[in-house]
């Protein structure tokens, strides 16, 4: 992600993020600023109300938000709901729109109605939820009842309860559950890489500033070796997520494999990164007041969401062809 446009996006979003310190589970002020600049719907076609731009542009934003531990649902709205709506050719409703992970049931009684209990990250803050239905439709409906749950990072991981809710829009476009799983895995891979980078950045600062036994931590060879291993894993996560975004953006033949490998790599890497990160920060990083925990609890949460590494390892093992053809198939 080195070209000029991406640097511009990075700089602009970085400026918006500067100095935020929300303790809420939803940073409304940040969300508003993102909406005002259109970054909340980057990568979503303008025809349906998005901000346009490619998937990699959106990935730059998602990565940066993850790096900062920002409490806004861009992954769920632009990356997931926006994509579903674009696939269905439906316009984006106003307000916060997120996608559900589960299918719901569409039925007709008086008009078109939707029922089901669907896991929906950020559901409590959403005006509308985009759901796939058992009959292959993409359905938009208002969110009324929500059961609140959180992941280890305190992010909303709610269940939206749709009890015979009148739908807002519907389109007869089949989207398979597996496609949603892949899309979710891709965005979590990008987010995991971003949070991992935050751990590395924090560790670099910490070991440069902190002294022990009369020397900066950075002068200890064991610390250097840990830091290098951390940087290696972070780089692996970053490049794998980047390669998967490229492959999906270009609809490569091996895009599904790329997503599987990237989610597996970033999910497995989370343990290494969080582990070394905490070890380098000592007790200080274990306090809820330190920013490290925001990054590591996200790593620990996101690695499980949309399939952890074991899930994707099994999928990769089941892929057709030799190992080498799988390893190289990801970029055509």
């Amino acid at each position, binding site marked *: 992600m080195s070209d000029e446009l991406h640097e511009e996006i990075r700089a602009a979003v970085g400026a918006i993020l500067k100095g935020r310190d929300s303790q809420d589970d939803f940073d409304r002020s940040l969300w508003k600023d993102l909406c005002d600049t259109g970054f909340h719907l980057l990568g979503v076609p303008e025809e349906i109300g998005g901000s346009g731009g490619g998937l990699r542009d959106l990935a730059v934003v998602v990565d940066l938000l993850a790096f900062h531990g920002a409490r806004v649902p861009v992954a769920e709205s632009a990356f997931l709901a926006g994509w579903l709506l674009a696939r269905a050719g439906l316009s984006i409703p106003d307000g916060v729109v997120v996608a559900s992970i589960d299918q719901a049931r569409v039925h007709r009684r008086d008009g078109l109605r939707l029922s089901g209990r669907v896991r929906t990250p950020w559901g409590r803050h959403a005006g509308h939820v985009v759901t796939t239905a058992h009959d292959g439709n993409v359905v938009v409906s208002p969110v009324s009842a929500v059961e609140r749950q959180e992941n280890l990072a305190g992010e909303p991981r709610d269940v939206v309860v749709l009890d015979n809710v009148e739908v807002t829009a519907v389109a007869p476009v089949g989207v398979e559950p597996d496609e949603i799983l892949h899309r979710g895995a891709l965005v979590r891979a990008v987010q995991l890489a971003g949070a991992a980078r935050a751990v590395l950045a924090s560790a670099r600062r910490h070991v440069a500033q902190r002294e*022990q036994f009369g020397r900066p931590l950075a002068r*200890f060879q064991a610390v250097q070796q840990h830091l290098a291993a951390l940087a290696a894993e972070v780089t692996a996560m970053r490049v794998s997520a980047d390669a998967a975004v490229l492959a999906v953006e270009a609809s490569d033949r091996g895009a599904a494999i790329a997503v599987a490998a990237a989610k597996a790599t970033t999910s497995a890497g989370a343990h290494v990164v*969080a582990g070394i990160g*905490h*070890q380098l920060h000592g*007790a200080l990083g274990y*306090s*809820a007041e330190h920013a490290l925990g925001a990054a590591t609890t996200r790593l620990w949460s996101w690695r*499980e969401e949309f399939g952890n590494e074991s899930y994707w390892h099994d999928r990769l093992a089941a892929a057709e062809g030799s190992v080498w053809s799988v390893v190289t198939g990801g970029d055509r």
Partner: protein
Amino acid sequence: MTSTIDLVAHRHSTAEHELRDEVRQFLGDQRAAGAFRPRCDAWMTAADPAFSRLLGSRGWVGMTLPGRYGGHDRTPLERFVVVEELLAAGAPVAAHWIADRQMAPSILRNGTEAQRQRYLPGIVKGECFFAIGMSEPDAGSDLAAVRTRAVETPRGWEITGTKLWTTGAHFAHAIVVLARTDGTPGDRHTGLSQFVVDLPHQAVEIRPIVTIDGEHHFNEVVFDRAVVPADALLGDRGAGWRQVIAELGHERSGPERFLSTFPLLEAWAAQTSDDPVAAREVGRLTARAWTLRQLSLAVAADLAAGRSPEVAAALVKDLGSRFEGDVVETVRRVAGAEPRRGADGLAGLLADGVLHSPAFTLRGGTNEVLRSVVARGLGVR
């Protein structure tokens, strides 16, 4: 001639076996009666004074103390058996843990007769809880960088300073503080002394430190010219460092250094019988736990024989604490269950395990520090 740390495997006596059966039966009954729910890291985080008192009434707290202080004159290896059964069950032992593990032997060894009379009977009953004020801001693993000072005044010792990461200070009846009585911070290992400070104390402020699990186990303890009596000094003036180091063998090699996440392993193993991937991993962790237990037991036997296996203890803690994290990482990876704070069953145990995992290899000396101890023991530093 041999180039390894010398440890010899221990075989339990019949008395130890019978004691184990007794404890196991008790814990099974208690759990069935709903007296506790197994938790990861219960010895750090699950404080239940009523349960501690119950254990005291069974004779399972301060077991090795002499009868004249209310103790039961049991052997350190009998205590080992009781403690490992409690840990493996994930029983709520945090309230009395520090008093039983460290302060009872320390007060017995270093305390005056008056201090023994004052504190030991309460410890044995499971009613007198302790905290230890050791780490300080900006010190990290460098315990010798103590800035807290105790100054001798006509009214007694006046203590000023801040201790961080003090477990359980918010419910402890007393705290043992390492403070500088003589010399300057540059002296590091000399001029330090230990004091017993009863809590609450009007000049001692206890502020919670919330950790990334969202809970309050630790405290910042601020001594603002807190005056304690002259006889609050524990052991010899200036011998604080030596006394603290002598406790490390006890602190580092105990079964709590490999069993903190055992309840998670047990819960998972109970539900994985037909998954060959999980079975393989259960077997692997079983083998490792078996070996770590043999190591921990061998160190306990060494301690019981009057030796000070500081190097072996460091080595066992390095291995054991990594195992605790290995259990968590293995279960989460293979089970594919999302951890959920406060949830029943695996999801809740996993959440505790994941959120506490950084602590395993930080508390009681980081693994880097432990390995330095081992390297020095091998003669290569």
